[in-house]
């Protein structure tokens, strides 16, 4: 099993600050070909035939989006590149922008030519200073070479790109919020329709595509749509970049064909689970996605297969969990993130997610009941159905998918008042096994409270009333005398 690098073709190969090296790797050749040998309709048809779908998470066919924007009436249109990568643990877009900024600029110009736009905006998060600097530098370089700006390569097509820095709101990755933010308003979503392709930035037709989507455009133009369509599965073509993180040996960025299984990703490319422990779940799609249990290790991954098991492709973050991860705690972590990042415009998301989070808190504190689990599911489904934008509509996914696949773990929390993975502090106790304790005093000296007493060379004792369950004694004990239950 090998990586196939399409979107990442130049990352780690060329010097991103030298346009000469990009040109040496067929840089701006796709733009040249499109401007000189293809009409906008030809180009859109080619992208449509390639089967490329939006890599930001939604999976909308890119060619179709461009076609709708092209057909929307009006002399002024915009191309927006969504580089507001906010999923925890995801860094695909950052890598592309830092390693191969010109590939995105070139593809934006091609999109501009196709939809009839002369202005592109890159909405990028301010937390990516290096990417911002390289983009600014690359735009200036490309303009100097006549590959961006007025009359590109001597043709009558002009295309200008400006940067717009996001102030760090997760919801601004949602396209209507992003547009509001570019316009200088609060980053809050609006009702769709009208879709941005009909009425977007400054009420003009706007095509919004993700960084990785753009990075796929030039190879399609140069190598042909048939080549691209030959990679991947029936409904998901090409490759997908994943950011592998969590309890995996080879943490990093990978690009694999659609339809690769989780097993191949984790055990062949990722080098297996850290410490040889057992795989428990993979979380895809960030706070909007779900957890995939071990039973789906051999499922070919594409947009539709992930959706069918209650997760989603998302932008490509993939967090691997082993037996030491508590699924209730994971669900709570993601929900805390979405509760924090909810813009507050619509009630289901603002209040519903908060209530959902409180219910999870009760479960992890041992005060939940079976009724709590039932209401968790009900409330989650209501939030999904009633929220205004993608953030709220997907926020309960981590909860619902873990409820579906790890119900026994939830049950252990509410019925037995026990956390099987030993993560939820309220449900675990640390005790000392007097048979194994040598009285070395390491635990007592490291305890931050302190609540461990005992004479040197005699068995120690933990005062359960004072213990804060930090687990320091468990980690420090060299004799395995501390028991975590």
């Amino acid at each position, binding site marked *: 099993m090998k990586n196939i690098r399409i979107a990442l073709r130049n990352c780690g190969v060329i010097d991103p600050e030298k346009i000469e*090296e990009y040109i040496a790797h067929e840089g701006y050749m796709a733009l040249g070909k499109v401007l000189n040998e293809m009409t906008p309709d030809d180009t859109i048809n080619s992208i449509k035939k390639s089967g490329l779908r939006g890599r930001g998470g939604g999976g909308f066919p890119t060619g179709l989006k461009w076609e709708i924007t092209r057909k929307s009436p009006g002399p002024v249109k915009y191309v927006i590149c969504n580089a507001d990568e906010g999923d925890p643990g995801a860094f695909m877009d950052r890598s592309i922008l830092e390693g191969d900024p010109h590939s995105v600029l070139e593809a934006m110009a091609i999109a501009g030519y196709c939809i009839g736009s002369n202005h592109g905006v890159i909405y990028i998060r301010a937390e990516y200073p290096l990417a911002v600097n390289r983009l600014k530098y690359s735009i200036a370089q490309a303009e100097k070479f006549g590959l961006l700006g007025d009359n590109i390569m001597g043709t009558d097509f002009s295309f200008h790109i400006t940067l717009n820095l996001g102030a760090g709101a997760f919801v601004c990755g949602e396209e209507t919020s992003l547009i509001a933010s570019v316009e200088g308003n609060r980053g809050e979503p609006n009702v769709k329709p009208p879709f941005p392709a009909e009425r977007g930035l400054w009420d003009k037709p706007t095509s919004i595509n993700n960084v990785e989507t753009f990075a796929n455009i030039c190879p399609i133009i140069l190598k042909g749509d048939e080549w691209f369509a030959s990679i991947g599965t029936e409904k998901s073509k090409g490759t997908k970049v994943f950011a592998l993180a969590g309890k995996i040996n080879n943490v990093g960025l990978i690009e694999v064909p659609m339809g690769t299984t989780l097993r191949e990703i984790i055990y062949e490319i990722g080098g297996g689970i850290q410490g040889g422990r057992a795989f428990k779940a993979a979380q895809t799609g960030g706070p909007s996605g779900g957890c995939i249990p071990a039973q789906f290790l051999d499922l070919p991954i594409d947009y539709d297969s992930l959706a069918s098991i209650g997760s989603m492709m998302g932008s490509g973050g993939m967090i691997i969990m082993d037996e030491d991860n508590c699924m209730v705690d994971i669900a709570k972590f993601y929900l805390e993130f979405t509760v924090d990042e909810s813009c507050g415009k619509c009630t289901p998301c603002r209040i519903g997610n908060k209530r959902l989070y409180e219910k999870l808190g009760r479960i992890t504190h041992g005060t939940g009941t079976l009724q709590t689990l039932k209401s968790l599911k009900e409330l989650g489904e209501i939030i999904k159905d009633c929220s205004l934008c993608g953030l709220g509509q997907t926020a309960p996914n981590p909860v619902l998918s873990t409820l579906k696949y790890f119900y026994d773990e939830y049950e252990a929390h509410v019925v037995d008042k026990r956390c099987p993975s030993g993560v939820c502090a309220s449900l675990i106790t640390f005790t000392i096994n007097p048979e194994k304790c040598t009285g070395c005093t390491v635990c007592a000296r490291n305890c931050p409270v302190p609540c461990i007493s005992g004479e040197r060379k005699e068995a120690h004792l933990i005062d359960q009333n004072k213990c804060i369950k930090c687990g320091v004694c468990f980690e420090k004990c060299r004799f395995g005398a501390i028991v975590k239950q």
Partner: protein
Amino acid sequence: MELSMNACQWMVNNMNKIKSYDELKKLNTKFKSEFYLTKSKEKKFVLAVGMATCGIAAGAVEVTEALKKEILANNLTGVTVSSTGCLGYCYAEPVVEVRSSDGSSTLYGSVDAIKASRIIKQHIIGGVPLLDAVVERSESK
């Protein structure tokens, strides 16, 4: 007068601009020959250091400096240090790829200043790869 100044400025600004697709194709061929190391009597090397946020945070800047210092100290010609983007080997940052004019490529991981000077002394001068630090290796194409 002012107008003609502007026109002058315009001409200066547009002097280096690519004016046609054919011109771009020519540049592509030219830059390609400059990018790829051609086989020659004297072995040439490019040391590409991964300089994305991840690499820099792990110490790629120090590695670059160490490489340059060692090249200077040993009076090496035909060895250049370049920076590049992220290869995806987050677990092995900082990474240095040694591209040789014989077509082979060796990727070193978890490089620090000490390993950097070993790369120069052992691999570049001595011709023996540092087997303990290799992440990936491909022979001449």
